[in-house]
């Protein structure tokens, strides 16, 4: 079968980092081809080269055997390839409709017919079953809604080649299912796709062949059938890696985190939650169930309309993050780019902000003590970085997420709240992060895990399921995926 897309011997450097080092990929006509690799393996960099956003330092890109168009010729690129980038390309100040049809609001050069555009956008959203108002400002959408808009846009171009870079990292189960249904029907129409994900089971579900990158190089390309799960992981990590086994434990008696009668607007109402030392409590729910808002309230990022939060025996002022942290709380926020890290500051500094006061006297932060602490965190979380002085902006997504984890764990918290902890994180890192949560709990902390990923919830001793802003069920360990999803969707109570 002939190659629809091919990249040969691509080299791309960013300053001292080599993101791609003689990497290659060949995708046959009509297949859905997975690209997997650990965080920082160079997947997104290849995407930007395949979509003409960046010029490779060496190597070439071919479409159906022909050399790729010049970088300046954006129209030619857009005819050849559509893409859902890992980084959001939604423009918050514009409406959903305009975002969907950015730079193609009209076909000709005449004035834009907004009414028609709205209708077209509405149809498009309906086709892809995205439940958002075409006229809403994109900035008002939730993270997952934005992702859906982005996907709908990429799929709507009618391009013969579509790249999806971690489209499911922010989606819940039903949305993922809808996306896959769509992808299958596109494949039936002969569309070629490249699919990037850290959810390896998705690779087996939707892709025909898979390419593995490791350390900026091409490792292997095979059909999925020829590359069982273990071998795939081994190819990614360069070593045999066992699947994650969640540990069992007995929670203590002491309640370390509790929320009582919490309510906030139309997000959640009258919620009680309590977490004991040595216990992991999961918070599950479908989109807009209010679970994230609740978790953000527990850590002080949001102020509830009513109710109280008690951390480690101290009643903290609502909406006061520093107070909660001082009481012994550490947390990982939902969106690392938004609240997780300061991109220009170093890994060391980002990781140690909560303990800055402990790194020196009289308000002074000792750089050497900071570096020492940071190196310890880098080691314990296995963060792939040049060192504590590298800006977080230069790290790959998964490694940046580990820095956010480092920040949450650096003060040995008694309470750990993590929201979508493994979003966009590779298999091995995922294990490391979940392991870090469990380690903290074994040291006596209580933890709350908020996640759309059932795998994350596996480590929980019990899972609270939210539906329309209320806790509808408390499920102890031992649930099956099907049971949990049914409760989340409100099908069964």
């Amino acid at each position, binding site marked *: 079968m002939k190659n629809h897309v091919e990249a040969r011997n691509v080299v791309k450097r960013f300053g001292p980092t080599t993101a791609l080092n003689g990497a290659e990929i060949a995708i046959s006509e009509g297949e859905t081809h997975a690209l997997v690799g650990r965080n920082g393996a160079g997947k997104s960099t290849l995407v930007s080269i395949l979509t003409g956003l960046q010029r490779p330092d060496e190597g070439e890109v071919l479409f159906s055997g022909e050399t790729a168009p010049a970088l300046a010729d954006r129209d030619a690129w857009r005819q050849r390839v559509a893409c859902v980038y890992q980084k959001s390309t939604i423009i918050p*100040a514009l409406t959903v409709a305009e975002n969907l049809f950015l730079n193609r609001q009209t076909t000709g050069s005449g004035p834009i017919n907004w009414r028609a555009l709205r209708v077209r956008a509405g149809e498009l959203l309906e086709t892809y079953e995205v439940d958002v108002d075409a*006229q809403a400002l994109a900035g008002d959408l939730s993270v997952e809604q934005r992702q859906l808009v982005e996907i709908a846009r990429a799929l709507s171009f009618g391009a013969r080649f579509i790249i999806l870079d971690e489209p499911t990292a922010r989606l819940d189960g039903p949305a993922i299912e809808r996306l896959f249904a769509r992808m299958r029907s596109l494949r039936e129409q002969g569309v070629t796709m490249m699919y990037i994900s850290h959810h390896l089971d998705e690779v087996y579900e939707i892709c025909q062949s898979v390419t593995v990158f490791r350390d900026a190089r091409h490792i292997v390309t095979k059909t999925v059938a020829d590359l069982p799960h273990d071998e795939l992981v081994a190819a990614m990590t360069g070593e045999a890696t066992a699947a994650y086994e969640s540990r069992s434990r007995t929670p203590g008696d002491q309640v370390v985190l509790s929320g009582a009668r919490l309510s906030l607007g139309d997000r959640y109402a009258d919620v009680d939650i309590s977490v004991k030392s040595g216990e992991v409590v999961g918070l599950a729910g479908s989109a807009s169930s209010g679970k994230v808002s609740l978790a953000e309230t527990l850590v002080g990022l949001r102020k509830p309309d009513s109710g109280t939060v008690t951390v480690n025996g101290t009643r903290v002022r609502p909406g006061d993050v520093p107070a909660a942290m001082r009481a012994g709380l550490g947390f990982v926020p939902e969106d690392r780019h938004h609240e997780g890290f300061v991109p220009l500051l170093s890994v060391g500094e980002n990781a140690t902000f909560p303990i800055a006061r402990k790194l020196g006297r009289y308000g002074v932060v000792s750089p050497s003590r900071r570096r020492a602490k940071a190196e310890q965190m880098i080691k314990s979380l296995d963060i792939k970085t040049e060192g504590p002085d590298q800006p977080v902006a230069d790290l790959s997504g998964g490694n940046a997420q580990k820095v956010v984890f480092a920040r949450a764990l650096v003060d040995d918290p008694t309470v750990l709240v993590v929201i979508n902890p493994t979003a966009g994180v590779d298999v091995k890192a995922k294990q490391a992060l979940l392991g870090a949560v469990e380690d903290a709990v074994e040291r006596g902390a209580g933890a709350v895990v908020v996640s759309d990923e059932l795998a994350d919830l596996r480590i929980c001793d019990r899972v609270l399921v939210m539906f329309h802003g209320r806790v509808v069920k408390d499920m102890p360990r031992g649930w099956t995926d099907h049971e949990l999803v049914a409760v989340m969707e409100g099908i069964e109570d």
Partner: protein
Amino acid sequence: MTAPAPRVRLARFRDLTLVPVIVLLLVVGAFLDPTFLTAGNLTNVLQQQAAISLLVLAEAMILIAGKFDLSLESTVGTAPAIAVMLVVPVSAGGFGIGLPGTLVIPLALLVGAAIGAFNGFLIIRFQLSAFIVTLAMLIIVHGFLQGPTEGKTLFQLPDSILYLGSAMWLGLPAAIWISAALFAVGIFGLGYLRLGRALYAIGGNAEAARAAGIRVDRVLYGVFILGGTLAALAGILETGRLGAIGNNQGVGWIFMVFAAAVIGGVSMDGGKGTILGALTGVLVIGLVQNILTLIGVSGFWQPVIYGAIILIALMISRIAGGKAQD
């Protein structure tokens, strides 16, 4: 899900948060001085704001595209002055090149466009900070007025450059028609043309705009060049209104220009705001100035009242707009 209708109305409405302020100013003005609400006085306000409003138009576009241009104010004096000096004889302060007088307007526009292009070159090509580049250019461009004229006012101007700023068309000053027409084009262009929408995309997220196939650099060059050209046109209108090109023409305008754009809802961070909003900002500033002149507030305290009114307008536009400003 919310019905779409109310949201549209609200979004539209957001451009017009200053309308109550304008109404209030009209009422207060009428109350304070009987002359205020006369056709003659309101025409004067419009005429006085015509030139500066073109700068606001230019700056609003540049801000929406996520950039910045302080040097526009210097172009207001320098562009027409250089054009005039290319045309008039040495005895009238010219360079002695003696190009035909009919060329003076195109020449002025060309000088403005060239200044804009140079700004664009430095900012886009060299990726320098737009604020500081155009700050330096503000100084340099003004120097190109001061240097050749040696600080003197140019009094002997060709008639053609005086015409637009002083003529009356259909009973109203031509300057009002011109700036109204350009605002109409601006409102339409940024509201309904793909190129205009591209400014919002670039200002909102330049990477995303590039990914969507917008030729970001080219559009930005265009915006800077258009900005410089509009500033030159503002200079031509002002020259006609004042009958001479003084060394201070345009100096100090830029602050008012920013104030008008921002209270009119244009964000300093790019990607937000409309030309209609900017227009309401210009009107507020113009009305405030007019009222202060009419009631004759002491010159010493005038700035305090003036600044306070800008702050109040800012708050109203913030509260009515409902979003944090940047």
